[in-house]
């Protein structure tokens, strides 16, 4: 999980953003868009950053479908969008290329193949569970997954853990943990409370 949370990369000047959007690519075929995103947005291991680099090479350097500025804008906004950042980034590119049809084509192209792979693996996984050898192997794999989940806590928080911001990160993170574990607030309640606190906290540094 390398494509972590929001950063202020998304902070761009209005003029820059608008000029980026005024660059209209020649009419690119939806089939070509689908082909690129099927091939390059599905088969990356280890998170979104490698996927992003590969797509950059393909659509900026090689095909010149979008400008560097448009690419950077979509990447930054992808990180500000809830859900899977890399998918949002791809949809942003699709929308820039062909508006709604482009966005929908990219969304399907970048998500269906990897979803099918995960479904197949999940079905196999469910079948293997009857096998004692597989059970033993799965126990070890789960122990590794627990470590990965705990490490993800740091992956999510560390971009903000900068000089002058450390206390804020520690306090907000600890408060969320305590409110959930000890006070028993549900995660959604904690997130809503975090949003309200965010309104009143002094300006964030990143």
């Amino acid at each position, binding site marked *: 999980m390398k494509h972590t949370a929001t950063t202020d990369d998304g902070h761009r000047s209005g003029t820059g953003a608008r000029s980026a959007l005024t660059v209209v690519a020649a009419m690119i075929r939806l089939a070509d868009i689908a082909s690129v995103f099927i091939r390059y947005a599905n088969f990356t291991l280890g998170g979104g950053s490698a996927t992003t680099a590969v797509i950059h090479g393909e659509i900026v350097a090689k095909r010149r479908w979008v400008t560097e500025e448009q690419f950077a804008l979509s990447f930054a906004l992808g990180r500000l969008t809830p859900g899977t950042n890399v998918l949002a980034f791809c949809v*942003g590119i699709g929308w820039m290329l062909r508006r709604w049809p482009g966005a929908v084509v990219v969304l399907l192209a970048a998500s269906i193949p*990897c979803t099918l792979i995960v479904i197949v693996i999940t079905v196999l996984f469910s079948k293997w569970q009857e096998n004692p050898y597989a059970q033993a192997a799965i126990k070890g794999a*789960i122990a590794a997954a627990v470590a990965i989940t*705990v490490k*993800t806590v740091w992956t999510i928080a560390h971009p903000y853990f900068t000089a002058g911001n450390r206390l804020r990160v520690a306090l907000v993170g600890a408060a969320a943990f305590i409110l959930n574990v000890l006070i028993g607030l549900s995660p959604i309640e904690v*997130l809503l409370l975090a949003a309200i606190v965010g309104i009143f906290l002094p300006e964030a540094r990143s």
Partner: protein
Amino acid sequence: MNIVLLYLLLLKGTATAFAGLASLPVIQESLVNQYHVLTNEQLNEAVVITRSSPGPVGLWVVSAGYFAAGLPGAIAGWLAMITPALLIIPLVHFVGRKMGHPRVKSILQTIVIASAGLLLAAAIPLGHDGLTGPVTWAIAIVCFILLFTTKLDTLWMILGAALVSLTASSVGLVALL
């Protein structure tokens, strides 16, 4: 479980998270604690599967959906994963006017940090379920150290861990797993 309800519960997780696994606490609360259609063991397995397959980590909700309701559940998971991505379109429209606002940045930042705290809380039951003996504890600790000290891909870590526990079990150490 009704598929539309499952989709909405998974969406509640994905639409309030800004990173792949950050949706886990909200989904754990709904599907494990409230509706009992998933177990913490299955949540752990969904993480294992996603970490062992290509594509974004956010795919873990597809596995979770499958465990909760079979193939229709997996489709609900896929829809819950892709729906929030469409929000980037209004963002592209409003960029430069709203997103750079310091107040907005501050709200987003606080939500993301809180989601990290919540993920740590969610990891407690996952650890309780997955770490059952000295061998699994040792695997988790070694992996944790490797995650911070090396750039080793998590796929190799999961495969290595599986091999270690398989070896331990085949030499008769099942009780220590």
